């Protein structure tokens, strides 16, 4: 009767979206899982089944382990920088909501996020340039030594963390801002009456109450950190015209294995590992941040 009619409407209405989803998401994902157990050089007609061989080989492959380490460092690094900074920035901006500059703050903070990745990376590439960039100029002006930012293995990873954080900061601030706006005023008023100052109420009340927001921001930042590609491609690329030390990240390794080494099955296995890591980390974050303090 009525519920049946609604049920059929629901199914019909969601069918187009689900169909698209199936074709552009589910099908390729399953195909990737399938490919990871085969060996395929992209060109030939045969794709022999190899079981878990690709995975076993991956763990002995030091280029892959390199990529994995770099990517993990970048992702966690960016997350470690973004979450506290965006929380604090959002708190301050929220405190000054009534200032006529609040629009400017919100916009300025988010602009790095909407700027195309490639121009942004190029801007930073110049800044970090060891011989021509203003960063080293400032350091030397202050009496320090110029550093080979984009050539040193550790420093170039730091540069990428910088770039990624710079881009995700705005997103984090915006989400936290919304979170702050939705915090219940009553609790804070009570705390103020009890004598808590701004800083205390921030640390002991806002932070725990914002746990669900923190969860969301950390999941999003971590996932996009593990997917870093364009930034490494441009900033730490090793093209002849603009050399630097190439920072090997997972997506780059995957694409190289597919299109330069012609080992699509191997690359698919890498993709599966990336997927598993991301899933695992997401579940851990949910476990850590969800249970307490959320509403």
């Amino acid at each position: 009767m009525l519920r049946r009619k609604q049920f059929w409407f629901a199914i019909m209405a969601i069918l187009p979206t689900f169909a698209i989803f199936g074709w552009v998401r589910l099908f390729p994902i399953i195909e990737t899982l399938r490919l990871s157990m085969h060996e395929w050089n992209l060109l030939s007609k045969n794709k022999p089944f190899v079981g878990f061989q690709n995975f076993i080989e991956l763990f002995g492959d030091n280029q892959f382990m390199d990529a994995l380490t770099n990517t993990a460092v970048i992702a966690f690094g960016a997350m470690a920088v973004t979450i506290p900074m965006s929380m604090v920035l959002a708190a301050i901006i929220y405190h000054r909501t009534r200032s006529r500059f609040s629009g400017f703050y919100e916009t300025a903070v988010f602009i790095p996020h909407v700027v195309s990745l490639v121009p942004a990376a190029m801007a930073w590439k110049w800044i970090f340039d060891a011989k021509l960039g203003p960063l080293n100029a400032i350091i030397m002006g202050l009496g320090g030594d110029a550093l080979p930012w984009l050539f040193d293995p550790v420093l170039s990873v730091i540069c990428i963390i910088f770039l990624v954080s710079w881009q995700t900061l705005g997103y984090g601030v915006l989400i936290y801002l919304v979170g702050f706006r939705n915090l219940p005023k009553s609790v804070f008023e009570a705390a103020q009456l009890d004598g808590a100052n701004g800083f205390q109420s921030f640390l002991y009340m806002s932070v725990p109450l914002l746990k669900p927001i923190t969860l969301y921001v950390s999941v999003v930042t971590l996932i996009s950190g593990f997917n870093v590609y364009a930034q490494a491609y441009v900033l730490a690329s090793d093209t002849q015209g603009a050399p630097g030390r190439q920072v090997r990240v997972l997506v780059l390794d995957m694409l190289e294995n597919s299109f330069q080494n012609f080992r699509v099955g191997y690359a698919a296995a890498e993709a599966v590992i990336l997927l598993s890591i991301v899933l695992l980390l997401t579940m851990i974050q949910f476990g850590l941040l969800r249970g307490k303090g959320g509403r």
Partner: protein
Amino acid sequence: MSATDRARRTNFLLDVTLFVICILLLTPLILLIANGFKTPQEMLVWPPTLFPKDPTLENFHKVFTETPLLRWMLNSFLFAILSTVAIVATSALAGYIIGKFPFRTINIIFILFLATAIIPFEVYMIPLYFQVKALGLLNSVGGLLVGYLVMSFGIFLIRQNVIASIPDELLEAARIDGAGELWIFWYVVLPLLRGPLAALAVLAFFQAWTAFAWPIIVMTRKKSFTIEVGLANFQSAYTVDLSLLSAASAAVMVPSVLAFVLLRRNFVEGIAASGMKE
């Protein structure tokens, strides 16, 4: 000092801090634009100058006449608009259904949507490429779109919003009055979703605008590049002209920044209205 004076002083300090931080955040982009106006020789000067001593429009002139930059921007724009339309349409409908029709089957579908959201696109990019090729959609906006037709986060956002701000009673009342489901969706639900849909539109637009890994394998003809891909290819020639590159990047950056500045209010309000508390 009175309490209000103290408050005003704190506010002032906070404003200054925020101002400085914001300027710092924008500095790389300002420098990029400034570099676009420098001559190639000035780019090599040490210590580097912040603003061009000898500004020239030559780089911009070269960029617009020697590269199909405008064509690339058009491609990016077309792609972004179409992707936005598709994502908004699918998210609105799917989000509404998942939010207000909690049947078992629908919930399972929702979990599937969520689960795949976590999976990075690059993971399944390659099989998807072959699917696109099979349809003959390489080097076309259609092929680009295939990867950007739905956004799991969009569906999630609308669902949250639908649950938080559309009371069941409203829908029931309409049904009792004899309205059809589609009519309810179009005339009752959609208008109420205006805020979050606008926010979603902004997100979707910029997601497509800044897409990189997918366009770079789907588009192989120079004319069909999107901006990101076109610019990235700039720097793979043997010797790179930094000032030219900066000019190209600046030219690309300005429209997107302008667009965002105009749309910011919609965006923030839209996210806020979705009630990010789950």
